[in-house]
């Protein structure tokens, strides 16, 4: 049975209490380092903390994710660091981590995975508009619990508005904010490893959030409805190549969306290798084909290639949209496509480490209607 | 060519007209017949062969010795006699002890059997020795325009290495060729090779099923062919296929089955111009519908 520990706090005291919890973990040797969102000079960044003294400015529930935590988890654990590391990540980041584990880019052996409840995050530029970072998170949680995430003229990221994964799975511990009532956050120990860490952190176990499941269910229902609406809209708007090309007309092939994407794990994307370093004569040939050639070309070709490569692993975190310098809403294109491809193999990205990725092993009779073998 | 005519029991006792037909037609076709004086029952499978092998072979030996005395083979019309004599001879030839024992029994009767004489069926003689062309050339009348079906006697087919004379026991054609030689056209049908079911004890032990079995054959004939007559070449088939038509009609209360049945030699005799009253007068299903439609053949 999952064990809970309540962290109650007075107004504007949440982060301090959380800092205490993470300090306890470091000091009592539960882990050797903690990767946790922390307020930095400008904005909030995931920070690798090895000495408890630096823990006071933690801000896990800050409604922002400057860079997908999964990419950082990959750099930290692809080759084991030899140290026990706790990582505090959002559900979409953890689901990306699950996919990266299967791609052997993340190794969870000495890792204590702590999942954050998540009502969503603001785009980095919007988040920067909050002055007082101390209070932002608490205030955000309160409003979000009341179903209000929009502030002045901006709201949480498009991806979060249609995200049906507010809570994290496959984790050792959870920081539960949804349905936790005000003035308190719950730490849930999910796995034996989590329980051991909770014991060591010095926080007294006890109590349980009432109404959490119900609140989570309600939130998921609302988000799913919003998602389906968005999918339908987007599908209607992009019925053909031309329509899709229009959507992407602002794209300048800077490939930033690929850099931000946590499951785009190639060392060097093919689009930057010599395969696409065409010589003049070929550009001329293409130009002559229709009399003109928009440059840089292969824009649609790039996005379609990315789709064929990673749509099966897309967790819908929205980092691609956040990363686009020309404000192209890239996320729906990938979520709509991923929805279909993952359903075809009844596979869900991030659901479980043991679920084999489709088309990973050689199976003679897979997708027989496509391969033409009538079976 | 000389052959010793073995009449058996049913032919002379019940259907002497068939005997008359054979005695009439054979000489015309170059086969002279001698009588088997003092012959006894072949013996029928239901008699000594079902009681004691020694008695069976002694009786067969008695008959075979007659042919050997005459120095020629037997010619037989009845299927049971034909296969009983041939199987008897087969047993004797392959069992020296039994041969001695039979000769021991025959000795006081002044007879001796060696197996020298063979046993041949009348349709084999007509098919192999005489041949359809010779028959056709002797015709005075023909069955032109008539449709017939043939019933091969199982006793001349199986087991082929003992009694058979057809090229293929499973797809016989002898009787059909002979019947066509008389000018008739012979229809085939799905149950052509099905046994008539008349011999042995089938009719006696389970009559309803035996009748049903025969009726399935006659239904196939009515459905699939325009048979004006049935040509048989075994006395058991002849009597049974006539009587069973009447039995079935009585059972179903309707004169549905009344196809005239002839022994082939009777048709042959009619076509060679012999008097129907002598060669095909005894029957239980009226035959006039065929006899009246015989077509005279004018010599070329």
């Amino acid at each position, binding site marked *: 049975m999952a064990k809970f520990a309540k962290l109650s706090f007075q107004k504007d005291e949440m982060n301090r209490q959380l800092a205490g919890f993470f300090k306890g973990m470091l000091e009592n040797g539960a882990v050797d380092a903690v990767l946790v969102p922390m307020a930095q000079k400008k904005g909030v960044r995931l920070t690798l903390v090895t000495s408890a003294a630096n823990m006071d400015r933690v801000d896990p529930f800050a409604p922002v994710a400057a860079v997908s935590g999964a990419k950082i988890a990959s750099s930290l654990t692809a080759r084991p660091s030899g140290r026990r590391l706790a990582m505090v990540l959002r559900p979409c980041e953890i689901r990306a981590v699950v996919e990266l584990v299967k791609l052997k880019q993340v190794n969870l052996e000495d890792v204590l995975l702590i999942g954050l409840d998540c009502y969503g995050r603001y785009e980095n530029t919007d988040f920067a508009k909050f002055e007082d970072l101390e209070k932002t998170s608490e205030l955000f949680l309160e409003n979000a619990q009341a179903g209000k995430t929009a502030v002045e003229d901006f709201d949480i990221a498009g991806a979060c508005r249609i995200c049906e994964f507010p809570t994290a799975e496959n984790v050792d511990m959870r920081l539960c904010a949804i349905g936790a009532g005000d003035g308190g956050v719950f730490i849930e120990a999910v796995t034996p490893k989590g329980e051991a860490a909770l014991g060591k952190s010095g926080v007294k176990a006890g109590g349980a959030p009432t109404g959490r499941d119900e609140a989570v269910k309600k939130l998921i229902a609302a988000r799913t409805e919003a998602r389906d609406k968005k999918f339908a809209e987007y599908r209607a708007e992009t019925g053909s190549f031309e329509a899709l090309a229009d959507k992407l007309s602002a794209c300048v092939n800077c490939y930033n969306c690929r850099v931000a994407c946590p499951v785009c794990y190639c060392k060097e994307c093919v689009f930057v290798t010599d395969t696409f370093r065409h010589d003049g004569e070929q550009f001329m040939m293409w130009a002559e084909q229709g009399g003109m050639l928009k440059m840089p070309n292969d824009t649609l070709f790039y996005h379609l290639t990315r789709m064929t490569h990673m749509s099966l692993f897309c967790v819908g975190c929205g980092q691609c949209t956040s990363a686009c310098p020309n404000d192209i809403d890239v996320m729906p294109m990938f979520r709509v496509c991923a929805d279909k491809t993952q359903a075809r193999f009844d596979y869900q990205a991030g659901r479980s480490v043991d679920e084999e990725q489709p088309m990973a092993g050689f199976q003679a009779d897979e997708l027989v209607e496509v391969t033409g073998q009538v079976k | 060519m000389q052959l010793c005519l073995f009449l058996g029991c049913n032919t002379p006792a019940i259907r*002497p007209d068939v005997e008359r037909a054979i005695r009439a037609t054979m000489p015309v076709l170059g086969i002279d017949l001698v009588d088997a004086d003092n012959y006894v029952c072949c013996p029928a499978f239901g008699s000594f062969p079902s009681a*004691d092998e020694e008695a069976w072979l*002694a009786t067969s030996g008695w008959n075979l010795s007659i042919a050997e005395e005459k120095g020629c083979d037997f010619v037989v019309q009845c299927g049971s006699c034909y296969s009983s004599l041939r199987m008897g001879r087969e047993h004797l030839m392959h069992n020296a002890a039994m041969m001695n024992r039979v000769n021991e029994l025959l000795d006081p009767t002044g007879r001796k059997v060696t197996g020298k004489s063979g046993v041949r069926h009348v349709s084999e003689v007509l098919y192999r020795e005489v041949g359809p062309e010779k028959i056709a050339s002797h015709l005075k009348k023909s069955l032109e325009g008539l449709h017939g079906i043939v019933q091969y006697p199982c006793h001349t087919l*199986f087991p082929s290495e003992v009694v058979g004379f057809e090229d293929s026991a499973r797809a016989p054609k002898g009787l059909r060729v002979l019947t066509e030689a008389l000018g008739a056209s012979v229809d085939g049908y799905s149950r052509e090779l099905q046994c008539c079911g008349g011999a042995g004890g089938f009719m006696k032990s389970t009559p309803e099923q035996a009748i049903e079995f025969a009726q399935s054959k006659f239904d196939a004939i009515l459905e699939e062919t325009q048979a004006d007559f049935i040509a048989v070449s075994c006395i058991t088939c002849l009597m049974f296929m006539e009587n069973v038509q009447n039995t079935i009609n009585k059972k179903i209360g309707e004169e549905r089955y009344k196809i005239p049945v002839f022994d082939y030699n009777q048709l042959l005799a009619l076509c060679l111009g012999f008097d129907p009253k002598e060669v095909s007068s005894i029957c239980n299903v009226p035959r006039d519908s065929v006899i009246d439609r015989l077509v005279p053949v004018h010599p070329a």
Partner: protein
Amino acid sequence: MDLQEASNKDLWKDIYKTGDLHFCFNCSTCVSGCPASHGDPPLLVRNLARLVILGLEEELLQEDTPWACVSCSKCEEMCPMDVKPFEMILAIRQWQSANDETRVPQAIVEIYKRGYTQAVGVNKELRESLGLPPLKTLTENIEQLELFREMLMKTKVVSENDYMFGE
């Protein structure tokens, strides 16, 4: 049913001496085309062979079906293992007659008495009307008939059941 008591393992030696019977592997080809297998009870010649092989004497003696056989020998032609089932039917009938005189077929009495199962040669007027010569049958040739009867009397079935052949 205990095979130990209820079966005589050498039964086949008494019935079907050639031993062809053992080649049977119960494929039921003989049965599927047998006219008498349409009867009720059906003649299942494969089952008779089985009774012999298993030596079930009692059951075999009770069997009436061997007498339903139409002697068409199709089973002999079709049997892939050349078991010669029709020869076996005759052998079983002979064995039954030897072990239960009620099985002995009446026809042999007719043959003993007059040489034939039917009244051969008696229908003299009919033969004349058909232009047939009179038949020199054994029935009328008393001297030959006597020799024939004496011969028969020396055979097992007649000698052991001589009461059936009294004058």
